[in-house]
């Protein structure tokens, strides 16, 4: 067989059975190695930006929240914050603190969710189930504060909608203790467990130069040694007062992305404690006039997945003239293509999951031999099973080779 004949193209997606939205990737592979990656986005395109122009500022709060279900508070908070700047009002300190608390609790829930999904992708389902069991603790806390488990509807223009009582404060602190203890255990698991080290160390390399060049954001960038975090670089909410560390790892692989998120969870827990202990007295919201004079504002927040960007233009009515959103996953697509190049087919699921995408449609992978036009179809689940089986057979040599580097 000549060399050309060994080059295959693998379209992956767009359907998938897991918890993420869909996406279509085309992998060009030479044997087991991925040599090129292409992608097509837009399957979930609903026309939210256009729809927002026909809704009032208050109605848009709930539309923006539903752009992403996992980082809903980040979206809603970012929108509310941007409109506040547009209308030139400021939320009272207590409102800002509660909003920041929700952001951090959401980050805990999102990072734990991701750790579970990553464990599932490498076939470590015990860890997946354990993490999701403990994640219910933070879900309960969010439900106690806001009344809903996922879309909290806490932020509103000019503050937040619900207050935190002293009784609730104690319950949250108790919940945070349990979370801290469990996260410590998971950190130990991630540092020592051979299953994770073998599949995550030296996989999906994204060097610092590549991360800067391709504009990686959030934990993906921080795992490649790029010291960037909007909470510190461009403080918003209560972040200019809360003490916290920015977690940066420089090993540039999937393991670094795991550890950045686990360490950030500790930071989040400490920040929540600080916020609750230093919660200022006073109102939780200010009044907001429904109509906003002509103005335009850019707002940014650090969502669990990275920098979230909002642009809003007003025209003197109660509806925005233009709303533009850029989500962190879009910024991280080009870096993930770079990570996949040169890797094995079996590493695709974990590397794709590594950026914590709001999609990952690996269902129905279609394998096409360009020369003989032979086709076969793989689902994402089959690809996952294939990757686990492949590592059982070839794992030892691959891992040995990786450790040598």
């Amino acid at each position, binding site marked *: 067989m000549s060399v050309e004949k060994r080059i295959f193209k693998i379209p992956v997606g767009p359907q998938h*059975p897991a918890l993420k939205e869909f996406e279509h990737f085309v992998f060009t592979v030479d044997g087991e190695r991925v040599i090129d990656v292409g992608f097509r986005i837009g399957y979930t395109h609903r026309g939210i930006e256009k729809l927002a122009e026909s809704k009032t500022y208050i109605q848009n709060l709930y*539309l923006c929240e539903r752009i992403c279900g996992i980082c809903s508070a980040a979206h809603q908070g970012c929108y509310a914050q941007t409109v506040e700047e547009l209308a030139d009002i400021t939320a009272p300190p207590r409102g800002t603190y509660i909003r920041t608390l929700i952001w951090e609790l959401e980050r805990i829930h999102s990072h734990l969710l991701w750790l579970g999904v990553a464990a599932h992708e490498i076939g470590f389902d015990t860890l997946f189930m354990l993490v999701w069991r403990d994640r219910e603790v933070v879900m309960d806390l969010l439900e106690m504060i806001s009344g809903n488990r996922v*879309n909290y509807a806490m932020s509103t223009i000019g503050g937040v909608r619900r207050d935190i009582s002293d009784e609730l404060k104690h319950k949250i602190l108790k919940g945070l203790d349990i979370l801290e203890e469990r996260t410590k255990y998971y950190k130990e698991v991630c540092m020592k467990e051979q299953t994770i080290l073998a599949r995550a160390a030296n996989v999906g390399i994204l060097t610092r130069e590549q991360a800067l060049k391709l504009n990686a954001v959030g934990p993906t960038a921080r795992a490649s040694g790029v010291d960037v975090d909007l909470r510190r670089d461009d403080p918003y909410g209560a972040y200019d007062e809360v003490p916290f560390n920015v977690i940066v790892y420089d090993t540039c692989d999937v393991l670094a992305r795991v550890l950045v998120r686990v360490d950030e969870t500790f930071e989040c827990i400490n920040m929540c404690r600080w916020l609750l202990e230093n919660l200022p007295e006073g109102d939780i919201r200010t009044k907001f006039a429904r109509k906003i004079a002509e103005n335009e504002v850019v707002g940014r927040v650090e969502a669990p997945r990275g920098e979230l960007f909002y642009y809003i233009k007003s025209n003197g009515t109660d509806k925005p003239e233009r709303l533009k959103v850029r989500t962190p996953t879009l910024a991280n697509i080009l870096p993930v293509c770079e990570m996949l190049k040169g890797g094995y087919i079996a590493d695709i699921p974990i590397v794709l999951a590594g950026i914590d995408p709001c999609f990952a449609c690996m269902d129905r992978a279609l394998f096409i031999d360009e020369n003989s036009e032979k086709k076969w179809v793989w689902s994402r689940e089959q690809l996952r099973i294939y990757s686990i089986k492949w590592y059982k057979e070839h794992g030892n040599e691959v891992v040995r080779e990786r450790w040598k580097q």
Partner: protein
Amino acid sequence: MAVLSKLVKWARIKSPWIIHYNSGGCNACDIEVVAALTPRFDVERFGILLKGSPRHADVLVVTGPVTRQTKNRLIRIYNQMADPKFVLAVGTCTITGGVFRGAYGVLGGVDEAIPVDVFVPGCPPKPEAIIQGVVKLLEKLQKT
């Protein structure tokens, strides 16, 4: 034959395998569906398993409104499933299109594309509500 069909029905009720498909939603219902499968809520005790292929599944769990891009794919998945097949639509978006109703990329509820057996309202529904929807579906299976 009566004995055989009884046996088949018993097997079907004890192990309704599901395939989960997001037809354009925001992920919130998806994480609640997965939460229902994990230890706190654990629908696996009803014999429910998440499957990757539509050909292995009895129940199609759909979340989110149907977008123009996904309608044909949703119908294709539905057609690939073996009879008898059931559809569980999770979330307000699957009923009417929810908050996205009126957007140019959104067609509306899931029944725009495929017939639905049980709707679970909520944005997103709690795992308890999803479990109730599953129980309703099992009752419906009992009657078939």
